[in-house]
């Protein structure tokens, strides 16, 4: 079942085209990984996918590259922000003042495997870069949904942890689109690799069908 599709479209911000001739589909059960040099247009494509998917009424979890956390709030509360649209304003206000035990426990169950349980009640501004990245991931995991959109979600953690985190993402979401810069991780995670170069999609194939030379050409 197709969740989102682009047919030769031009994508960009405020009239400035970043990507041209984009043809791409995302089906349930697929895991897309975008590859390409920084500035190639990966984030543009992720944003366009996010708009398309939410526009179609799908529940999408988002982990942006800059995390977009609220530094003054605790890790738990930042994670709880993933489900604010599920409740009314009053319930959210109450949660902000005093998170219900059930919600806390649910977040806690995610923070444990993320290695954040010791930081659960610390404000995000007191955390390291890697911990912040995992907090943003916790928010996305807590939100859940049909699709995960994540921009470099494991750039600030070591490789062992990165593998474990990607495994969590795979387990939680029926479909996902990630931007990654580590080619090995990308190959092991993706069902399809999407390569972007010079404002165009130049590669769209399962990892087994993509040669190392084809990937190297993306970064040349």
């Amino acid at each position, binding site marked *: 079942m197709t969740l989102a599709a682009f047919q030769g479209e031009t994508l960009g911000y405020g009239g400035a085209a970043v990507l041209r001739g984009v043809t791409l589909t995302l089906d349930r059960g697929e895991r897309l990984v975008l590859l390409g040099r920084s500035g190639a247009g990966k984030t543009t494509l992720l944003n366009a996918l996010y708009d398309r998917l*939410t526009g179609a009424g799908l529940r999408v979890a*988002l982990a*942006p590259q*800059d995390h*977009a*956390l*609220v*530094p*003054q*709030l605790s890790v738990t*509360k930042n994670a709880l*922000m*993933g*489900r*604010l*649209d*599920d*409740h*009314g*304003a009053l319930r*959210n*206000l109450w949660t*902000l003042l005093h998170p219900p035990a059930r919600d806390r426990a649910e977040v806690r169950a995610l923070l444990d495997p993320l290695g954040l349980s010791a930081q659960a009640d610390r404000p995000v501004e007191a955390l390291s870069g890697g911990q912040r990245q995992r907090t943003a991931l916790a928010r996305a995991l807590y*939100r859940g949904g049909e699709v995960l959109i994540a921009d470099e979600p494991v750039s600030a953690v070591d490789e062992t942890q990165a593998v474990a985190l990607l495994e969590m993402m795979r387990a939680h979401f029926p479909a996902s689109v990630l931007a990654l810069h580590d080619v090995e991780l990308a190959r092991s995670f993706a069902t399809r690799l999407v390569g972007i170069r010079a404002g165009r999609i130049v590669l769209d194939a399962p990892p087994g069908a993509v040669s190392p030379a084809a990937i190297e050409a993306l970064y040349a």
Partner: protein
Amino acid sequence: MPERLSRPAVALIFAALGLALVPFADLGWAGHDPWAALMRMARGFLAPDFGAIEEIGTALVSTVAFALCGVAVGALAGLALAPFWASALVRGLSVALRSVHELFWALLLMQVLGISPAAGVLAIALPYAGIFAKVFAEQIEEADPRPAQVLPPGTDLLSRFLWARLPLIWPAMRSYVLYRVECGLRSSAVLGFIGLPTLGFQLDTFFRQGDYGAASAIMILYVLLIATIPLWLRLRAAVLWLAGAAAWLAMLDHPPMGSGALWRFLTVDIVPAPLRRGEGPDGLLPWLGDILWTQGLPGAWATIVVGQIALVLTGAIAFAGFGLVVGRVAGRARLLGHLGLVVLRSFPEYMLAYLFLQVFGPSMLPAILALALHNGAIIGHLLGREAEAIPLRRDAPQGVTLWAWELAPRLFGRFVALCLYRWEIILRETAVMGLLGIATLGFFIDSAVAELRLDRALVLLVVTGAITAGADAASRAVRSRMGAVREVSTLDRALKPLETG
């Protein structure tokens, strides 16, 4: 105006303008022997007399109570307005609220509410609501928008604000509210001079009785009260403080006010006289022209004369004085300089002018001195703190050489920007000085209110607002032409509450 203005050019233009106005200023102390008055006061001030502690305590508690309630109501109203800042109606309301000085608000409110706690609280709350709305709106605007952008699409507006906006601006808001409490304590003290039972009232009483010892005691306690705000005012305990303040105000005796005062105020008192007398719109223009010609113009001229001279003197005091609080310049004298600046900063301009009036008699001199010392101390304090933060090479000179070669050149742009920022505030305060009998706009407003000609007072208030708004616009125009000076925003960290130590 030319496209670029150098900072020295700006300073020179303002200095020349100020000096050119000196011949028009009434600076005499005719018929007064300032030295005798000064000696009498100095003797009293060196021997503070805490004997009247009951009156002093009551006045101080009332000062705090009015300040806390006024600031709290103002902050809540401002917070409620801030999210709607995009609306021209809200912005206009905010401008109108804050362009009228607390004392003028009090004069108007007392026509409706009498000399009552409600009049005092609202006199602080109304202009502060306008200021809070603007500052909170700026803080919201400057906060990182990304957390709000990544919230799930269906999140309601309130949750959006409370979860992804408020936490980001909370620290800045909190420190701004604390700074405003300090301002509120000054406003509240000054309200006493027009009859509310705060510090100004008690101070005036002591002065009339010639009891300088008691006046000294109450002022010492007042400075201590302001200097220790960070110690006694904890936002966590705000609810307790507010409950106490409200209870105190509720217990105050006040004369009853006849019913229907608000209705009369709105339907009779502020209706322009020609309309009230049934002359119709034809009488409106001559009426307006007469007020502007006989009161608006002379009042505005006096306000500008006093304000511009005070601005130049403010600059001179701040620029020459900021070194006094920098350790490498002043050495041990730094503590003394710090104390001097804190004391001058604690006393509102109006109260200083009242004191100087006792010394020099009625002229523009007390107002100019008061404005320049208070504002000069504030700017000097800010510059001094910035000077302390400048990283200096280890072999940098000391004393006046350091001030002249390292600090003054680096901070000159900042200094000019700060003075321009206070320009509007100085003019606003200058207008109010008229209540002390100096011929600025406040004098004519006060007379109009006393004669129950509130329609006339309203016209003069609009003139006052136009002058401060003009200064604000001119200040922004000059600042933008000076280029790369860091903008002095109302959110500036430098405007934090007084720090002890």
